[in-house]
């Protein structure tokens, strides 16, 4: 499509301005995390820390047991990720590559749960876990991932599986393969990029989850980074240098994962949004 020179420059201008507004909070976070309190509060604001207070990170991460929070978060994130990838891909296979009566109706029923606000199920779920004696454990946060891994992920993978030609299965059938072999040897490897998308979303979802741990965890020693950071905020209200250092430390792993898996993230969002 042809664009006039004027339009293009206006577009550049607007994009640069908007990008600046999106990135300034990050810069403000980083610069504040590397300053001492007096420099943080200097007016007009300064942008370059002088000198760099690397010690903020050590202090912020040692006043609370952030190493424990980090380990806890990793345990939850990895367990959820494995459960999500395995059970959602298996279910997506059953909902797309096998023909059976009632399949699409059942899938449609499952899809309706996407509209259901979490608030509706949270109280009975909490009471159920509590009755089973699993309050203040990781089970309520991890186990559901092993039962389908979320309808959204099944939907995403199913969309992808539907694009793989049928002939592949047929040929394998002729060679005497069964459904399990077709799933493991053909469909799973062929859908690598969609699986990565699900894994990445699952990682971010449980890394960023706040309400789940807030409701199910009571003991500090089980806290996740999100809860730890919130607790930190409660006790060090005015210590902006430490608050920013702790926040930066929680954000950083997400940013790294995103930058590594960037292509897949963007593909995944497109896949879910377009064919919805």
């Amino acid at each position, binding site marked *: *499509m*042809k*664009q006039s020179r004027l*339009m293009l420059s206006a*577009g550049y201008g*607007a*994009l640069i301005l*908007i*990008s600046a507004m*999106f990135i300034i*909070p990050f810069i*403000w*976070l980083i610069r504040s995390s590397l300053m001492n309190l007096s420099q943080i*509060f200097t007016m*007009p*604001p300064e942008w370059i820390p002088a000198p760099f207070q690397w010690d903020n990170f050590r202090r912020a991460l040692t006043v609370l047991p952030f190493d424990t929070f980090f380990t806890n978060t990793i345990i939850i994130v990895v367990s959820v990720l494995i459960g999500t990838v395995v*059970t*959602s891909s*298996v*279910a997506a296979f059953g909902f797309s590559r*096998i*023909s*059976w009566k009632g399949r699409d109706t*059942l899938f449609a029923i*499952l899809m309706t749960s996407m*509209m*259901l*606000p979490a*608030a*509706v*199920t949270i*109280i*009975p*779920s909490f*009471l159920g876990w509590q009755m089973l004696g699993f309050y203040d454990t990781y089970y309520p946060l991890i186990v*559901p991932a092993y*039962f*389908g891994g979320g*309808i959204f992920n099944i939907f995403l993978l199913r969309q992808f599986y539907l694009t793989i030609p049928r002939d592949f299965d047929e040929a394998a059938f002729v060679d005497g393969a069964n*459904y399990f072999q077709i799933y493991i040897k053909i469909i799973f490897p062929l859908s690598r990029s969609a699986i990565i998308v699900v894994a990445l979303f699952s990682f*971010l979802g449980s*890394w*960023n989850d*706040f*309400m789940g741990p807030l409701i199910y965890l009571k003991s500090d020693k089980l806290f996740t980074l*999100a809860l730890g950071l*919130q607790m930190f905020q409660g006790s060090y209200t005015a210590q902006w240098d430490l*608050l920013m250092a702790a*926040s930066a430390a*929680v954000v950083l792993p*997400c*940013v790294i994962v*995103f930058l590594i898996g960037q292509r897949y*993230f*963007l593909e995944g*969002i*497109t896949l*879910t*949004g*377009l064919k919805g």
Partner: protein
Amino acid sequence: MRKGLFYGLLFTAPAILGFIIFTLGPMIASLVLSLTDYNVFKDQTSFIGFDNYVKMFSGEDDLFYKSLGVTFYFVILRVPAVIILSFFIALLLNMNVKGRAMFRTIIYLPSIVPAVASAMIWMWLMNPDLGLINSVLNWLHLPTSNWLYSEGSVIPSVVLTTLWGIGSTVIIFLAGLSGIPKQYYEAIDVDGGGWYNKLRHITIPMVTPTIFFNTIMTIIGSFQVFNEAYILTEGGPNNKSLFYVFYLWRTGFRDTEMGYASALAWILFIIIMFFTFIVFKTSKSWVHYEGGERS
């Protein structure tokens, strides 16, 4: 085919069980709970019929109306802001500019930031005395604001903080825009129409399915806002940011009135369904599907 049914059920069994255990079961339980006065600290629980619902609507619980009002205000401000802004950004990204990938990354990046960290950053940016935003406004001799700390500005401020995370909506719009065939625009070029005609007669009609999808998702998400209320404002000042789900959480988990909280949850569900239904109904008149069959 018998074998197909067996294997089909086998492969989908975890998901089906999960649906029954973690969605359907709790849904039914929640509906039953909402008809009781269940409170963790009370010895006896009795079936009270629709009393919880009566309590809500009769005005006995003024916080119900308050939180509903707060949430509606938030939704009404946020949904158009998200849709218009992300559409606008997607249009810019869809132009033939250099460095598209970099701009796209920058705009998407904030949406991966954990809610707690993002709340912390914005509390600091919006700090009335020392925050960057007021410093800049001061420097420009513009009026400053108390942002999250005054009754009038708290909701618009929360809306602003959530606009930082519109990256995924932008990407979905971008995907919709890139699906528009180039020939359509060339036709307008031949007719001598400018960018306005292109936008009005091609771009907007062609992305209405994406607008529809994004609007529904944004409405569903906006009604359920929780983290911001819990971390940024704790419902204050003076309950002016008492978001509905935050109030529900407080009633159920802090005040342990779980029966009443379940009733609150069902009203939220009905409200969300109602608005989704309305958007679906009206969509017939404004959503354009190519060939009339894509869904």
